[in-house]
């Protein structure tokens, strides 16, 4: 099987645009990167796919030329799958939940202390770190984005299973206590947002959302 690919060869004195073909020594299945070496009569090309290197190394006479992987050939990232992102998300939540439970036991509280919040921190760290690129980029990222997009539907389902009837059966006391707590808390949001901003007054974010 001969695979054609366009290359631009820089020979030092002049550059040549041409299309080369190579015949993989090991049969290369599309979308399955592996080390494959190719030889034609005039040219030897060896691609290093084991480490997802996006470069091809050619040997033409005595020159060694490096060129980008042709688009037609298997490119980096083909091994990344949606499930990797979903798996990362699951591990983050499981770890967070575990830490939250342990915190609860340590504090002597019958509740999970911030498990979801801790899990979110893990995900933020993973998505901002280059070490986890294979789990957060491309297809893997869309595995996480899918759940993010399912957020509102899940919240609607959550609303549909609230004990609304139970809330109304609590009578006037329950309604008054709930409503009063919400109104006072709402009113305090701008107050505390300001405290946050004044304590950060030296940083650059002073005008950001102040014109609300």
């Amino acid at each position, binding site marked *: 099987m001969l695979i054609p690919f366009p290359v631009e060869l820089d020979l030092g004195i002049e550059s040549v645009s041409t299309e080369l073909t190579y015949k993989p020594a090991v049969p290369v299945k599309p979308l399955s990167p592996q080390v494959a070496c190719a030889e034609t009569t005039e040219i030897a090309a060896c691609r290093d796919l084991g480490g997802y290197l996006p470069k091809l190394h050619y040997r033409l006479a005595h020159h060694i030329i490096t060129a980008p992987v042709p688009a037609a050939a298997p490119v980096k990232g083909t091994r990344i799958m949606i499930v990797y992102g979903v798996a990362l*998300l699951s591990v*983050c*939540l499981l770890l*967070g939940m575990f830490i939250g439970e342990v915190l609860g036991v340590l504090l002597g*509280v*019958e*509740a999970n*202390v*911030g*498990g*979801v919040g801790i*899990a*979110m*921190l893990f995900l*933020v760290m993973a*998505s*901002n770190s280059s070490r986890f690129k294979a789990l957060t980029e491309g297809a893997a*990222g869309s595995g*996480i984005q899918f759940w993010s997009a399912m*957020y*509102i*539907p*899940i*919240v*609607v*389902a*959550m*609303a*549909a*299973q*609230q*004990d*609304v*009837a*139970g*809330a109304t*059966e*609590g*009578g006037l*006391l*329950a*309604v*008054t*206590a*709930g*409503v009063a*707590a*919400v109104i*006072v*808390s709402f009113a305090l*949001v*701008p107050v505390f*947002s300001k*405290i*946050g901003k004044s*304590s*950060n007054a030296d940083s650059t*974010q002073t005008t950001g*959302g102040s014109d*609300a």
Partner: protein
Amino acid sequence: MDILETVLVRNNLLVAFALVGATIWISYLVANRFTAGRIHGSAIAITLGLVAAYWGGVTTGGTRGVADIAVLGGIGLMGGGMLRDFAIVSTAFGVKFSELKKAGIAGVISIFAGVLVSFVVGAAVAILFGYTNAIDITTIAAGAVTYIVGPVTGEAIGASEAVITLSVAAGLVKSILVMTGTPLVAKYIGLDNPQSAMVFGGLMGTTSGVAAGLAATDPKLVPYGAMTATFYTGVGCLLGPSVLYFMVDSIF
């Protein structure tokens, strides 16, 4: 008819996906056609969900809204704690760490302030309604924190079954009001940036209320509010049966 029901009950999660999908489609249609986009489609969908939950609770006598109806059992899984938390965490994808740090201190302060404020308001209402026993006042006040803190506190300090039920009801009212009220007041309380969303999550605390309230206001704010809100219940359970109870006990 029996065959159809068997299929639907056996595949109830798929029924939930289809039903929620239809609900959201109708909600966005109504939002765009009749309110010209002034009310967010998801706010209508969440309200429809709550109305359905009320109907489900009244017809079945259960506590899980429509999820107590066999065919709609999948709603219980789809909107249950596991998938809800999974979806909440996924919203943090792409959030910049620096954004979280900016409001970090204000967020932490707001969690403690939120627990304290809701507790004090709840206690005041309980006293207003004639309660004079420290255990009763503390339990009802803890219910105004969240509907989880209420019973946890009540059981820890030995409150009666009736008072614990009252505290759960108070917490539910709070949660439902946050779900539906947030999009209406968002403009007036400056809830339009990550920092105020973190403060909002810390002050309100009810995870489901904050999750739904922010979804109906601006889904971009969800990760920030949810981040602080998930610590709130833990802090409430920590302070309720201890510091806050001693505080009330020393007065009454």
